């Protein structure tokens, strides 16, 4: 019955409009994927895939993406699309570095980065909320302006002080903290390469050691965002502006103010990502160091179905694959095998549901991947670099149809037009 429905609704591919992804299913799926990963690691011997170093690298690379994604979430939950996150992040890197150097403290970088990004957010809010400019257009303009302002200010602020147009002098970083003794305890277990046990040890070591304060703060932003947006009246008001601003208006919600707040917070989050890049991920401001992470944050947010938990999963996936490709070429090669297994499982599911065509195509792809895996010893370096982007695209094309964005996302709202 539902099969018939599915096919008529999406005639092109007969996609599955399955049940909604709640957090329980999410956990089960994550656990399953992790097990599969352990299996692949054991079979291929690409032991770095679940090592502690890989995990902490994944965290480092996931955080700017995740923060940008949170920025996107805040704005879009209030109905404003923010493609200007990249520009706001760039502002965050500059102002983070500038404040950090001025006050000689990484905490100043945090404040500075947030403020810098929030200013970018303010511009976006003025354009989209007050003047009703198309959100994407304003975002694109802000990306250009952000880059220009940062360059200009870098010339002024850093030239002659050990930096220049494209970089700042070295910036003091945060101290790292962690649970003492974990490395000593877990390292030996990891090096045994036992199935699952060593993997869990690696995972644990990755998340308990070598963390900076900003890392912890950034991670906390995820539950904090959830609490604020879903458990406070402020959050309810904010979300109502993304679902039905006119209804919100009739109930006395000041929609403009909410949207302003959301977009400014959004910019602040992106700015924090910038500060993170400057102080934790590296310890310097470099032009272009954001490297498109703002856009990828947006993708993570969409991947996460406009929810903090899903977004964190998306950012982690990106960070994980990025760390994978950055660290060891062999890991990416093993990833081929992982994807092949995954496709086999999906195809089996499709075949079981009697979707012969999709199942067949899936199996064919899986066979190709396996053949590629066994015939090669490595994936071309040029393509390895873009593993995360390919992954994002693949995952989105599998998942996009289950997603639901806020009903009034991107819709231009004007006060007093309701009724």
């Amino acid at each position, binding site marked *: 019955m539902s099969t018939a429905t599915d096919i008529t609704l999406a005639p092109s591919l007969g996609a599955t409009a399955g049940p909604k992804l709640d957090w329980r299913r999410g956990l089960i799926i994550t656990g399953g994927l992790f097990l599969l990963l352990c299996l692949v690691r054991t079979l291929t011997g690409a032991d770095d895939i679940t090592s502690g170093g890989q995990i902490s690298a994944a965290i480092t690379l996931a955080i700017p993406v995740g923060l940008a994604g949170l920025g996107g979430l805040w704005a879009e939950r209030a109905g404003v699309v923010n493609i200007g996150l990249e520009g706001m992040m760039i502002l965050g890197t500059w102002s983070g570095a500038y404040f950090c150097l001025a006050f000689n403290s990484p905490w100043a970088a945090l404040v500075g980065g947030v403020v810098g990004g929030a200013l970018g957010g303010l511009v976006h809010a003025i354009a989209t909320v007050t003047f009703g400019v198309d959100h994407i257009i304003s975002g694109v*303009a802000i990306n250009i*302006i952000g*880059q*220009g302002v940062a*360059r200009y200010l870098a010339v002024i602020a850093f030239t002659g002080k050990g930096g220049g147009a494209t970089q700042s002098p070295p910036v003091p970083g945060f101290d790292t903290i962690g649970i003492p003794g974990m490395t000593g305890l877990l390292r030996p277990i990891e090096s045994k390469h036992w199935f699952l046990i060593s993997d869990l040890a690696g995972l644990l070591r990755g998340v308990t050691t070598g963390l900076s304060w900003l890392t912890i703060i950034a991670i906390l932003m995820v539950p904090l965002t959830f609490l604020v947006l879903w458990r406070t009246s402020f959050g309810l008001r904010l979300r109502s502006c993304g679902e039905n601003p006119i209804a919100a208006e009739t109930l006395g919600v000041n929609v403009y103010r909410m949207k302003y707040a959301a977009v400014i917070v959004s910019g602040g989050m992106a700015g924090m990502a910038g500060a993170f890049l400057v102080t934790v991920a590296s310890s310097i401001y470099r032009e272009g160091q954001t490297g498109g992470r703002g856009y990828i944050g947006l993708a993570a947010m969409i991947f996460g179905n406009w929810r903090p938990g899903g977004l964190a999963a998306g950012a982690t996936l990106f960070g994980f694959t990025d760390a994978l490709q950055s660290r060891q070429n062999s890991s990416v090669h093993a990833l081929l095998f992982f994807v092949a297994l995954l496709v086999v499982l999906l195809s089996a599911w499709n075949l079981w549901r009697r979707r012969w065509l999709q199942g067949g195509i899936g199996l064919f792809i899986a066979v190709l991947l396996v053949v590629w895996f066994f015939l090669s010893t490595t994936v071309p370096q040029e393509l390895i670099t873009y593993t995360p982007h*390919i992954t994002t*695209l693949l995952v*989105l*094309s599998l998942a*996009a149809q289950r997603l639901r964005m806020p009903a009034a996302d991107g819709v231009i709202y004007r006060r007093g037009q309701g009724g």
Partner: protein
Amino acid sequence: MTAALKRLLPGLLAAVLALVLSLIITSLVLLVSGAQPLFAFGQMISYGAQPDSIANIINNAVTYFLSALAVAIGFRMKLFNIGVDGQYRLAAMVAAVVAGFVPLPPVLSQLVTILVAVLVGGLWSGIAGLLKVTRGVSEVISTIMLNFIATGLVAYMLQRGRFAVQAAGSNNIGTPTIPPSGRVAGLPLIPGTNTTIFGLIILAVLAGVGYQILVNRSRFGFDLRATGLSASAAVASGVSVKRMTLTTMIISGALAGMVGLPQLLGASYTYSLDFPAGLGFTGIAIALLGRNNPIGIAFGALLWAFLDQSSLILDLNGIPKEIVIITQGTVVLCVVIAYEVVRRLTLRQQQRAVGRELATDVPVAEGAAA
């Protein structure tokens, strides 16, 4: 004629206003950082007006124009092709490979090169189109990812032993140099300089005219605009939005495929490491400036290229030339804001006119605001 002028006037006014506003903002930034705005602008204008500079400005504008056109056709139906950048780079790379490796007689060679570029650009953007119509993936995200992936593909091809050659001792690497029979000669249009104008300016002009006719005069263009103005109304009128999306995305990519050609066939003759990058993003900004209209885009492209070129002189005078990036960004933002304001005012004025028509007996209050 006057009616047409009346229709265009608000838009023009908005553009001028926005330009002035962004110049004011730029001046403020300059003043704050201790430079003399008038001096800076004076220098820029006098340098920008030299024959050499004019030739360079036109050449850059040709490229920008094509890029903006590619973006604009998507914008007309609310399709955001952020991937022009990847599309043109990949297209130029493949076209350079074909032109460099396959010797063909003149004319045929150029035609084949252009065709290849157009095809590659269209195919690459078609992926995003296909993902959108079949899988519902937002084209904004997919084109951004495809930009990155295109970089990987270009890098893969641009290696020794694949499609690239490297001159002895050189630190550069590129596709084989296109033989003279495959090039497009420059046109000595600007007196007083030996810098020629890209011969492919003709391609740009043709593309612009074609765009205008296609979008504003053809049935296809009507469907396209209708979809952009109201997808739901377009569907009800019989437009297949999926087909339109895919087609428009492909056309946009095909236009994007042309972006690298003037440079490739008119100046560098090879796709090498220093082939210009990032033109797709410039195109977005210029499409916005030009309001998705070829004439507007042409002006926008010239303005952008003028700022690029004339800013070179600033460094010579100790003013950071990065200031023009701020100008460029603010002018885009100001222009879109100004257009929006003008659009609202025009609509309100029209409603008022309709009201007068309908109820001449009721006094109409001018300036009553909602």
